[in-house]
């Protein structure tokens, strides 16, 4: 059994004896030993782009949730949001590693030093225009009520997609989805209970949560608009067309809001995809500046 003092030696051993701990060098390739062969007839670039979409959604939502650390209404809620963010970060690591294994690295490798693993290069060394997350997760948190409505909307949509993705022809995506479904189920329940508590709470919590719902709803348009990549991969049995989950997602959201005595905002009009196409507002660049600043300023930092 390795003791406390030998764990770090052992980690060094596991990483070619470098013993350096910087931007993932202390972590393993989350897909180590997993067969990442792209299935026959599946376009590598499309598969990689799709993994970036799902991975970036998780990474950016995780970062938004951690903004509540030290600022949530109660300590237990900080722990809860940190735990949910950790699950999402784990999903992001697998998906970004899967994108890299399919050969999709964008411009990240041009900026990241060779010692930085591909998944970290994708997370830390892409600019906002290379991120493929939807506007729903990129939007600022707003107040706690709005944060919970957004978490409810984002986890409901992700759960519906991942639940179908368990049958993907890509075994790696199918496995990531099968694990993610268990986690997203309790993420969504957690958000839904807060929306109930706040919507059906005091006049003030009701007013603010309603305002949150009104702010979040238009962002759903970006979730349901399929890109060419999603359409092609869905036709090939690899991805899920987000348009196909629209009815299920809006039904779940409406049920929660009605139970919470909140008015369900009008369904957003159809719009061409923006976030999935790399078109984001300035808020994503601001989030990435915080997420990526340390790695970019000190690319070989060790601690």
């Amino acid at each position, binding site marked *: *059994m390795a003791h406390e003092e030998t764990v770090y030696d052992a980690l060094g051993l596991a990483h070619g004896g470098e013993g350096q701990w910087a931007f993932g060098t*202390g972590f393993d390739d989350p897909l*180590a030993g997993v067969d990442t062969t792209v299935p026959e007839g599946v376009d590598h670039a499309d598969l990689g782009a799709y993994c970036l979409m799902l991975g970036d959604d998780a990474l950016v939502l995780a970062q938004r949730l951690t903004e509540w650390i030290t600022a949530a209404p109660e300590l237990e809620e900080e*722990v809860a949001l940190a735990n949910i963010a950790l699950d999402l970060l784990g999903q992001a690591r697998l998906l970004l590693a899967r994108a890299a294994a399919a050969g999709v690295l964008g411009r990240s490798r041009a900026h990241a030093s060779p010692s930085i693993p591909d998944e970290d290069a994708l997370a830390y060394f892409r600019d906002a225009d290379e991120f493929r997350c939807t506007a729903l997760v990129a939007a600022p948190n707003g107040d706690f009520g709005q944060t919970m409505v957004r978490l409810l909307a984002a986890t409901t949509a992700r759960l519906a997609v991942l639940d179908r993705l368990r049958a993907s022809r890509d075994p790696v995506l199918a496995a990531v989805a099968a694990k993610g479904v268990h986690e997203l189920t309790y993420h969504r329940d957690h958000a839904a209970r807060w929306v109930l508590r706040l919507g059906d709470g005091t006049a003030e919590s009701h007013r603010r949560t309603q305002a949150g719902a009104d702010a979040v709803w238009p962002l759903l348009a970006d979730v349901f608009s399929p890109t060419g990549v999603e359409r092609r991969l869905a036709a090939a049995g690899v991805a899920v067309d987000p348009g196909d989950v629209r009815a*299920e997602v809006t039904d779940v959201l409406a049920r929660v809001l009605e*139970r919470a005595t909140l008015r369900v905002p009008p369904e957003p009009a159809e719009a061409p995809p923006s976030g999935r196409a790399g078109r984001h507002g300035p808020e994503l660049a601001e989030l990435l500046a915080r997420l990526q600043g340390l790695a970019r300023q000190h690319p070989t930092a060790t601690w």
Partner: protein
Amino acid sequence: MSRTGRTKRRAEADGPGIADARAVAAAVVDPELPMLTLADLGVLRDVRAEPDGTVVVEITPTYTGCPAVGVMRADLLHVLHSAGFPDVEVRTVLAPPWTTNWITEAGRRALAAAGIAPPGPAPLRADGPVPLDLGPTRRTADCPLCGSADTEQTSEFGATACTALRRCRECREPFEHLKEI
């Protein structure tokens, strides 16, 4: 745990070498729940010998983002190298996904003995959309300290991803519960 010194060993399929390697790997403990071995936690999926003598260990992550996986991997390499196996490969297996149902009976007893309430059966679900659960969390756990069933949840989320915090109304002690997932 038996250590066989620094003599380099090749693991052979079904030979004594691989049996030792299996025993060594199975005894590695979880870094966050050290009362559980990786075998009891249900994350050790396979230990086998390749034709060239390499020991291949397959592990599966518990929660997707669980940071303990890197330490598990390092610990496995460390103990197997120490047991004399120079060529060891630790591979990740993602399917089928781990659930708390993979924790062995011995693991559940070890958890309870350490004051952590073991998980109940993980929820099974039918086909179709994942049902929404808007009620209070229905899970229950007996107090691992006094055995009372009169306990309440204080927080759905604990210090690690896998635990919830509860309190016993009988003996008044707080305790952790490995939640079923």
